[in-house]
């Protein structure tokens, strides 16, 4: 297609695509859809990558949305339709060719191999054309990760030894293998979509962007991805806090200085002078449940608060499972190694007594007893945890004591509100004493932090 309005089929495909993106929480208006259609007219449909970039430019508004956009685009505008041509691949032969392509770093060939792999090894079910396609099963049979040594030998043999950058070779190969795994995933999604309709697959099989993933269900790589967003998020929040602080500085009228200033305008007070507030940087105390179930959430929040440390005169962080200990030093700048944080806390702090499951009552009681001096009238306390006490005594008196001493106390709970109070959750009991907020993902956390943090 060269010029003129996009054909009816294209318009339909485009609106379906936009609807699928909206389903993932992207806010796209009609104006953007129209722009996208105009972009299609300008660019034509001949080059798929141009189309991808053109649609991204017109439909997206932020960098993080790209992670959702790309897989959905692959579903709605696939490179090919149906199964790859040629006879079904033999497993060993496929692995040989895969090793070669990985050594060469040839993206196009890897993509083709991904298609063959899914076709040959990803199908399951009984019907002749198979009932579905599984990326997991494909990767389980091909095992690309075991090719590392072969690929390394291949590259070395070809290029010879001695280049300094070759000590990075293993990581580069791992990244290529990771790319192949993603290609297999995309290919499997495409094949399934042909069978079951792309709208449904676009809704279900495309992972949400990192800041919308629930802390409680995020896997390891999702958490790693989240950790990389800590610094940008902290910078954003710091700007927001600074703006709030500026606004808050507008106080009452300073009469003496207003009258003094009015002398230059013949005694008419043209310009009111406001009383300046003494800048008092607030103190922050964090109480974090770091037991297995909620540790992802606590780690993330601790890192975020640490990144914001220059906004406060003092930040103290306490971790607990069923005993409480101060971990501020472990978070200090320079020593912070985000991946190992959880392990280091478990190793170096005394967090458990006789058993390993979390006990809010005992931990908070111990805090009120041992570290009461950490909380004063200028302190804001954040408690992070799901309030699941394993049927222990919630010990509300301790919480009451903490709230009484602190300027403000908030509880951030990573569980959905509907689950508060089910099973061993003492959330309702605590929510009566403390302002409790649901905080399931990084997006909610960012919003809460910018609203609740004292200025």
């Amino acid at each position, binding site marked *: 297609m060269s010029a003129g309005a996009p054909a009816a089929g294209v318009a339909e495909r485009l609106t379906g695509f936009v609807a699928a993106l909206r389903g993932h929480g992207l*806010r796209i*208006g009609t*104006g*953007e859809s129209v*722009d996208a259609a*105009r*972009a299609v007219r*300008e*660019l034509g449909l001949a080059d798929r*990558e*141009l189309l991808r*970039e*053109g649609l*991204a*430019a*017109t439909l*997206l*508004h*932020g*960098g993080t949305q*790209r992670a959702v956009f790309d897989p959905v685009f692959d579903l709605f505008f696939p490179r090919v339709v149906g199964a790859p041509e040629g006879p079904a691949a033999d497993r060993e032969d496929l692995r040989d060719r895969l090793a070669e392509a990985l050594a060469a770093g040839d993206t196009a060939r890897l993509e083709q191999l991904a298609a063959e792999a899914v076709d040959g090894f990803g199908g399951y079910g009984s019907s002749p054309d198979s009932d579905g396609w599984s990326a997991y099963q494909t990767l389980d049979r091909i095992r690309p990760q075991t090719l590392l040594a072969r690929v390394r030998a291949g590259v070395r043999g070809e290029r010879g030894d001695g*280049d*300094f*950058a070759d*000590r*990075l070779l293993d*990581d*580069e190969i791992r*990244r290529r293998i990771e790319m192949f795994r993603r290609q297999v995933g995309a290919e499997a999604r495409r094949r399934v979509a042909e069978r079951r309709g792309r709208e449904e697959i676009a809704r279900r099989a495309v992972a949400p962007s990192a800041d919308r993933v629930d802390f409680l269900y995020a896997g390891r790589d999702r958490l790693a991805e989240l*950790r*990389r967003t800590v*610094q*940008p998020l902290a*910078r*954003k929040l710091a*700007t*927001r806090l600074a703006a709030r602080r500026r606004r808050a500085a507008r106080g009452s009228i300073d009469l003496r200085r207003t009258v003094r200033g009015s002398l230059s305008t013949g005694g008419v007070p043209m310009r009111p002078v406001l009383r300046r507030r003494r800048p008092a940087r607030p103190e922050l105390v964090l109480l974090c449940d770091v037991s297995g179930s909620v540790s992802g959430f606590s780690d993330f929040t601790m890192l975020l608060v640490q990144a914001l440390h220059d906004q406060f005169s003092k930040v103290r962080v306490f971790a607990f499972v069923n005993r409480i200990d101060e971990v501020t030093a472990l978070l200090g*700048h*320079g020593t*912070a190694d*985000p*991946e190992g944080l959880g392990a280091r806390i478990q190793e170096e702090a005394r967090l458990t007594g006789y058993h390993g499951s979390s006990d809010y009552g005992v931990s908070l009681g111990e805090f009120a007893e041992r570290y009461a001096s950490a909380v004063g009238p200028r302190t804001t306390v954040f408690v992070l945890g799901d309030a699941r006490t394993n049927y222990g005594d919630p010990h509300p008196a301790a919480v009451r004591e903490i709230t009484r001493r602190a300027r403000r106390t908030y509880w951030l709970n990573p569980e959905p509100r509907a689950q508060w109070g089910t099973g061993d959750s003492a959330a309702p009991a605590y929510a009566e004493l403390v302002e409790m907020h649901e905080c399931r993902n990084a997006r909610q956390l960012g919003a809460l932090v910018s609203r609740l943090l004292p200025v």
Partner: protein
Amino acid sequence: MFRSVDEVSARLAETGYLASPAVATTVFLADRLGKPLLVEGPAGVGKTELAKAVAEVSGARLVRLQCYEGVDESRALYEWNHAKQLLRISAGRDESWDAARTDIFGEEFLLTRPLLTAIRGDDPKVLLIDETDKADVEMEGLLLEVLSDFQVTVPELGTITATRRPFVVLTSNATRELSEALRRRCLFLHIGFPDEELERRIVRLKVPGLDGTLAASVVRVVGALRAMDLRKVPSVAETIDWARTLLALGATTLDEDVVRDSLGVLLKHQEDLQRAAAKLDLDAV
């Protein structure tokens, strides 16, 4: 301005700006659809350079508005030259008020600032609004009118509409989330780090004296550093700096000593240096 996406890449390359397909496509669309271009991305990937390159390619004048906290209407749009107006009034003492009034609010006393400059006149212009995120929210409201209708209202003169629309580029480092309203009026382009091949070409172009295989090694090491969890990952600007440093040091290949001595060009934090050294198997830095 352009006929095809390939033409955009080719002509930008002539000015020394190597554009990725994403950049070329978006520039092409911004030109064709007549919409402003919002460019985001980490520092040092060439956001501002892009605007300069587009200006050079199209033979347009570059009008630049540098945003900062507290930039306001009188800095961005226009201002009356009060001092000159006072002089004019005292010069024509026995004039009637009406004559003086119509005169002192004329073109002669108007100080145009970047936004007004960009929409007045018939010559082609590229308007660069740099670091938009540094400006206050009120400033965004002002930009909305200018960017959607390309017109400005000066109460004493009336509404000034652009006879020729400038090519508008807004850049942002995302320190503050720009408002949805502003984003909607723009095409969005995220410039990330270039892929290995493109970055190699950029290094070869900017540092012509550097050996080809050395340039490839440089890019590979930088790529590995970017994959690490660092406080500040090296950007394209740092890659070029490093390549220049290596050239100045007279290095022909990368080896342990050279890397150890020059790593400070790439990484700006002590803890990052330590991590990178551990990763690259260097002795103490």
